[in-house]
């Protein structure tokens, strides 16, 4: 409790400090454009004047529009909408207001009531448009959104979340976008759009493509982006949306646009997030000392105190000893003293930690040039000591209008991040939580632990440390040139450079070094990896409207170049106190010889593409794209691969029949089909022979060897995607978005086993056809809306099912020679858990019994066959979804985000159930009661301690009793925010335009159908965060 208080007081001090430092700043002299919003400040020069209040929303997405300019016609009086899209103006009766916003059609309204709801419609390329829309992404063509599945993320809300990683903020926001939390702080989360499209499970084959301001960025760069710098995120899910990006986009695209300057006065935004990360769940609950000692006694392992000091032990081994009684008495004293120690290793080894983030953004500009600068510092501590991540990022975005028809956008951004990871060499700290016995202590006075008989506690910790640094710099230029009213050319050129450094040290006094000669104790490895990317993309676009026909044609060429250069050194024999590679003992030979490694790779991709769109009377939309890409990684004859798509849109509401219906509006149907080749995951060495030199030598000469067994017949996978979508609006309240999709992966690649006599056990081959199909339903609704109270909800359910449609070599594919069940089978989904039907533990011999398909009982002695297995469930939950709600009352906002998944199964981890051989480690709570010890023990869950070695084989299979449902409903995020009243600000803090304080709770509650008995790695830490947003 004391600790929490400390954290909170620290937080308050921290905020005070910030407040003071900004209070003293010079920004308070800035004129406040938004001051007109306050009706009191307007001189009431007419009796007919009244206060007009209103809210501005996007016509399609129904989201609030921020920063929209509202002005009174023929006057200079105006205001801007706030973060909820609201505005207030004093008007004379009969005056009209003009509502304008970049990217939207300007509206002129003559208000009839004192509260109006304004729906702004997005502008499209029309002849009569005067304002050039800032288009910083050359591939962002409006037309494709009409036919393709594109989701726009509400970035304003996500930016408030206490997340360092931008992707975690997207969790539970977009139907069909699945993001799984990494086990350890600093690791990359797994991101998948609409399921796993490949047989291969690794990231490189399944990760979407990331695009920032039209430039492709690496997933590493994506994860270190500062979410505050992003103004828009689009998730592209089907071929019609992604085919423009060619062979890299088979797994979907996440497109981002960074924040830019605006025309107007300088605006300074400061955001502070300070929070506490809590320890979270325990994972599995472990035994206390008393239960553990009792279990040891029952298992009768003399190496452990529970049995060694028990009466049973003395009576068995010293039954005739004259001192038997005093021995028993002494043993009891020893046991009593041990059972009085109850170390809670979970509390000892994990900790609460701080999270903080400060960001400052400055934006402004004139007609000719606009700017946006931002810096961000953030730090997050992990649950184990020494695990933390620190990051500093900066960005400069400059926009210039060189000529009236030529705009140039310059972006420069960079970041530094540092990740510390402490770990045992063989044991991670989190695994120690489940291994150390509660009767053991940190301070042992040199006594060895029972759990690790040859070590003391200090031999387990401080064994290893690792520090990773990432330095990234990225720069790009976007050019937008409107040659004439129909034709424009836009281009992006950019490069980014990432340096990853890592230093890991095994201390010379570490336990793992005990068998190492003195001069070779300790190990340091250090590497520096650099990654340079250059990309360019030029697109020409022609737009023409003739009567009711809108035509858009575009063509592009792009080029990507990547150079990777890695160097590493590793050596033994670390001089004491040395924390750098300079301490390596270079006199060592043989297996302690210092090692140098190096990797250099360059590759390029060039592409050419075209797309066309046609719209008739805003009723029918037709879209198509074709892209050809060539990669240097592929052999010449397979170099060119294509991606193409076709899309259709149909605005049914345009028909007069439907136009008059009140309850339904904006009905739109979309359909798309496309085929994209996927070269991700194919490396040069899997297609043709590549040899390299090894680090080792033989007889003083180098070793030259083949890197990988190659398959000259390997072809890229083809993803064929079909999407049917529909959006409509019910009663002007409920926005419905439905999507049905089917993604087929043809020529799916996977490393399959081959006869070992070929020299390699595995070869990458095109093995079959995989299908992912599913639907996504998303409902957005304003449930209640009046002046003071507003309630919005959005609910989404996604269903995904994958099936193996075809396998080229027979109808079953075994990835492992020992598999009883094929990993892939025609007609079956991937990820079925197969197992046995358990009949529980036999009360006579304490061994598990099973039932075969004929109802006969069998035990471990049976040679189990495929027929004995049953389908126990599906490991990936097919249904996922979210239920996000927000409620506003006056100046308060409350939002609750709920995430759920249904239909998944998982196998209980039995790793904390101990037997004779590993009873030295702590055991899961309750094992003593649930374990079979003697004849007649009925209804036990765990088999006896010592089992025949043969039985181990059958025990590794899941059974119907070791499977649990992973159904879960989790409150991702609760946020309460309060916006300071304008009057209050004006009186007390006149230099602040806008102020908001908020409290957030993240990962606080998850409801599960079955208790999760996993390790700590899957546990998400709750975070309590206080945030402050100030606009000057």
């Amino acid at each position: 409790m004391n600790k929490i208080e400390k954290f909170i007081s620290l937080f308050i001090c921290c905020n005070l400090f910030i407040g003071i430092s900004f209070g003293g700043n010079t920004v308070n002299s800035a004129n406040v454009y938004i001051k007109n919003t306050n009706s009191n400040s307007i001189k009431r020069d007419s009796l007919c004047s009244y206060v007009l209040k209103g809210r501005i929303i996007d016509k399609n997405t129904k989201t609030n529009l921020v920063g929209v300019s509202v002005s009174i016609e023929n006057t200079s009086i105006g205001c801007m909408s706030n973060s909820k899209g609201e505005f207030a103006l004093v008007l004379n009766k009969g005056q009209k207001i003009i509502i304008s916003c970049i990217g939207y059609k300007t509206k002129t309204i003559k208000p009839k009531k004192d509260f109006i709801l304004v729906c702004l419609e997005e502008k499209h390329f029309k002849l009569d448009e005067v304002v050039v829309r800032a288009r910083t992404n050359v591939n962002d063509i409006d037309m494709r959104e009409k036919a393709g599945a594109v989701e726009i993320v509400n970035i304003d809300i996500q930016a408030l979340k206490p997340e360092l990683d931008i992707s975690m903020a997207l969790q539970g926001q977009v139907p069909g976008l699945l993001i799984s939390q990494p086990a350890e702080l600093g690791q990359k989360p797994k991101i998948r759009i609409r399921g796993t499209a490949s047989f291969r499970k690794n990231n490189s084959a399944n990760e979407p493509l990331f695009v920032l301001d039209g430039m492709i960025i690496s997933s590493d760069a994506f994860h270190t982006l500062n979410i505050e710098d992003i103004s828009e995120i689009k998730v592209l899910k089907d071929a019609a949306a992604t085919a423009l990006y060619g062979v890299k986009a088979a797994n979907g695209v996440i497109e981002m646009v960074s924040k830019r300057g605006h025309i107007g006065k300088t605006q300074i935004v400061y955001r502070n997030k300070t929070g506490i990360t809590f320890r979270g769940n325990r994972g599995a609950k472990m035994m206390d000392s008393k239960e553990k000692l009792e279990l040891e006694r029952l298992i009768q392992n003399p190496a452990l105190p529970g049995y060694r000091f028990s009466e049973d032990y003395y009576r068995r081994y010293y039954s005739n000893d004259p001192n038997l009684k005093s021995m028993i008495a002494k043993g009891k004293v020893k046991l009593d003293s041990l059972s009085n120690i109850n170390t809670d290793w979970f509390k000892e080894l994990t900790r609460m930690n701080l999270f903080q983030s400060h960001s400052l953004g400055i934006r402004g500009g004139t007609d000719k040039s606009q700017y946006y600068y931002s810096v961000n510092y953030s730090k997050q501590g992990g649950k184990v000591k020494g695990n933390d991540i620190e990051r500093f990022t900066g960005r400069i975005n400059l926009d210039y209008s060189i000529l009236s028809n030529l705009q140039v956008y310059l972006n420069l951004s960079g970041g530094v991040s540092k990740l510390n990871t402490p770990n045992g060499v063989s044991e991670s700290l989190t695994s120690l939580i489940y291994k150390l016995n509660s009767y053991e202590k940190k301070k042992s006075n040199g006594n060895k632990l029972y759990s690790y008989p040859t070590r003391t506690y200090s031999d387990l910790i401080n064994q290893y440390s690792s520090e990773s640094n990432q330095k990234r710099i990225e720069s790009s230029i976007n050019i937008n040139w409107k040659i004439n009213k129909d034709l424009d050319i836009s281009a992006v050129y950019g490069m980014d450079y990432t340096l990853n450094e890592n230093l890991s040290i095994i201390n010379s006094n570490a336990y793992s070094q005990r068998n190492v000669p003195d001069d070779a104790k300790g190990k340091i490895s250090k590497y520096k990896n650099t990654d340079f990317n250059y990309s360019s993309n030029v697109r020409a676009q022609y737009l023409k409207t003739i009567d009711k026909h809108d035509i858009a044609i575009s063509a592009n060429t792009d080029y990507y170049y990547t150079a990777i250069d890695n160097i590493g050194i590793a050596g033994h024999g670390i001089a004491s106190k040395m924390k750098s590679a300079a301490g390596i003992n270079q006199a060592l030979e043989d297996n302690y010889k210092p090692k140098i490694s190096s990797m250099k790779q360059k590759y390029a991709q060039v592409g050419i593409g075209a797309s066309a769109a046609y719209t008739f009377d805003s009723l029918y939309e037709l879209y198509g794209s074709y892209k050809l890409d060539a990669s240097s990684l592929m052999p010449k004859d397979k170099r060119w691969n294509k991606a193409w798509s076709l899309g259709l849109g149909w605005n049914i509401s345009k028909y007069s029949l439907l136009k008059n219906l009140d309850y339904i509006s904006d009905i739109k149907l979309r359909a798309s089909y496309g085929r994209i080749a996927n070269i991700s995951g194919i490396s040069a060495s899997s297609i043709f022979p590549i040899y390299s030199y090894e680090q080792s030598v033989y007889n003083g000469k180098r070793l030259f060897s083949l890197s990988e067994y190659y398959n000259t017949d390997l072809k890229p996978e083809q993803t064929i995607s079909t999407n049917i979508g529909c959006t409509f609006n019910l009663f002007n309240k409920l926005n419905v978005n439905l999507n049905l999709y089917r993604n087929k992966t043809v020529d799916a690649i996977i490393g399959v086993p081959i006869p070992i006599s070929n020299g390699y056990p595995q070869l990458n081959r095109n093995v079959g056809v995989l299908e992912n199909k599913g639907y996504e339903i998303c409902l957005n609704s304003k449930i209640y809306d009046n002046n003071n109270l507003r309630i919005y909800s959005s609910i989404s359910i996604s269903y995904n099912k994958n099936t193996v449609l075809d396998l080229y070599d027979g109808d079953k594919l075994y990835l492992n020679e020992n598999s009883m069940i094929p990993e892939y089978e025609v007609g079956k989904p991937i990820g079925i858990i197969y197992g046995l039907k358990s009949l529980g533990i036999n009360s006579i011999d304490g061994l598990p019994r099973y039932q075969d398909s004929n109802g006969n009982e069998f035990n471990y002695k049976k040679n189990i066959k495929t027929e004995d297995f049953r389908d126990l469930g599906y490991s990936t939950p097919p249904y996922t979804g979210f239920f996000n709600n927000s409620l506003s009352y006056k100046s308060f906002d409350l939002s609750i985000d709920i995430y759920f998944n249904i239909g998944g199964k998982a196998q209980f981890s039995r790793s904390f159930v101990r037997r004779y051989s590993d009873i030295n480690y702590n055991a899961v709570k309750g094992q003593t009661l649930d374990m079979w010890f003697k004849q007649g023990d009925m209804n036990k869950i765990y088999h006896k301690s010592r089992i025949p070695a043969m039985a181990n084989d059958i025990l590794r299979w899941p059974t119907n009793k070791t499977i649990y449902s992973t159904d879960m409903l989790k409150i991702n995020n609760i946020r309460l925010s309060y916006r300071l009243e304008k009057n209050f600000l004006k009186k007390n803090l006149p230099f602040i335009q806008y102020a908001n304080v908020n409290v957030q709770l993240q990962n606080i509650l998850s409801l599960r159908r079955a208790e999760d008995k996993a390790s700590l790695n899957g546990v998400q830490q709750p975070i309590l965060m206080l945030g402050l947003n100030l606009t000057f």
Partner: protein
Amino acid sequence: MKKIITILILSTFIYSCDLDIPLEDSISGKDAIDNVDVAREAINKVYFSYPKYQLELSVLADDFLPTYLINHSDYYSTLYSWYALSIRNLSKKIFEDYYQDILNINLVLNSERYIKFKNPDEKKEWEIIKAEAYALKAFLYSDLLFLYSNEYSTSKDNLGIILKNETKLEFLKRNTVDESCKEIERLLKYSKPILKDNFTSKAYITYNAALLIEARLYMYKKEYSNAISSCNKILLNVGEDLINTKEGYKKLWEDGDNLEKIFAQDNYTFFLNSITHDKKLGDYFSINKFIDFDDDDIRNGISNISFPMKENFTTNLVNQNLLGKYRFSVEDTKPKDINVLRLAEVYFILAEAYYRQPNRELSYKYIEKILKARNTQVFPKDDKEMLKKILLEKQKEFVGEGIRFFDLKRCKNELLKDLGNGIKVKISPNDYRWTFPIPRAENRYNNIIQNKNW
């Protein structure tokens, strides 16, 4: 201005898009091995990764007894007790390693057409490399044959090994034992004359090594006179001298040349690492009790090291014989070369082959010679169990070197495993596990005929 901008922008459409980017840290293409130096480096890879299963095979045989620490190693405890799954796993590893080495040999041999020679010396060097590659392949094949096939017969049903010459993906069937033997003989026949005239290094396969590989094969085929002839050729080459001092015997395991080394694999890691549990506590295995070195035996203290170890968790420390050879004390973890083939084996093969001819006189001559050199007691000439004694002495000489397993299998001897607590298990000579299983992968993906009972 507009013109300039137009030109600038239009010029960006033109890319320098050469996609033939050469690899910088690797060499690609089927012609990667295109000169003699690279061929040597590629064959070096084969030597370097020549499978090292001496310890596992010794554990399967009766060279060792488990110590109380064996509970810490599932791998060795299950292997020691001949647990079928454990043998299956070992068999897979062995099969994989051997065939990977065979692939690496084939990559060198099949590159012949790409190799360019600058001068006749290079041509000659290539011939040597090729001869070594042939002999190495014969060596790998013969080990595989001894492990995966039953005793020699010319029957068509007696299946041998898969003979592989191509580097591409193939689905080959097993050849018969007879065909396999013929292939091994063919390979050796090709390489012997070239190796005879060109000695390279004892880290490589030389003429003597090829002869010893051949002698092993003849013993398997029960062609004893051929075995004797191969061995005699070796003795003709190296002379009749043997190591007869402790110092000299120790040198056999150290760097540098030694008269009894025939093929010593260059090695950079501590070979006994996997059976060492903890330098302070001891090993998973001690040398079997019946393998006892006299105090005067020159091998005493080198083949074995005496180390105080508990007999079980509760007892006091007792001196036990741990395996030496690759270390001279438990503290010594300096890597030492691995003696894959050494001269002593020639004497034991001669002794056994002459005995079986039968020629007790000559048999005794060779066994006496080697044992005297080792300064140990020789059994009497008229010993009724002479063959058994020869094999036991061979085991003693080669303890921990994996040779015993092959001898037990070839001679169809019964094996007795001491599981502790007075439990002893007999492995009969007809037990199916003597013949390793073809890995399931080969069986599953190639539909190959499996060995009996597996």
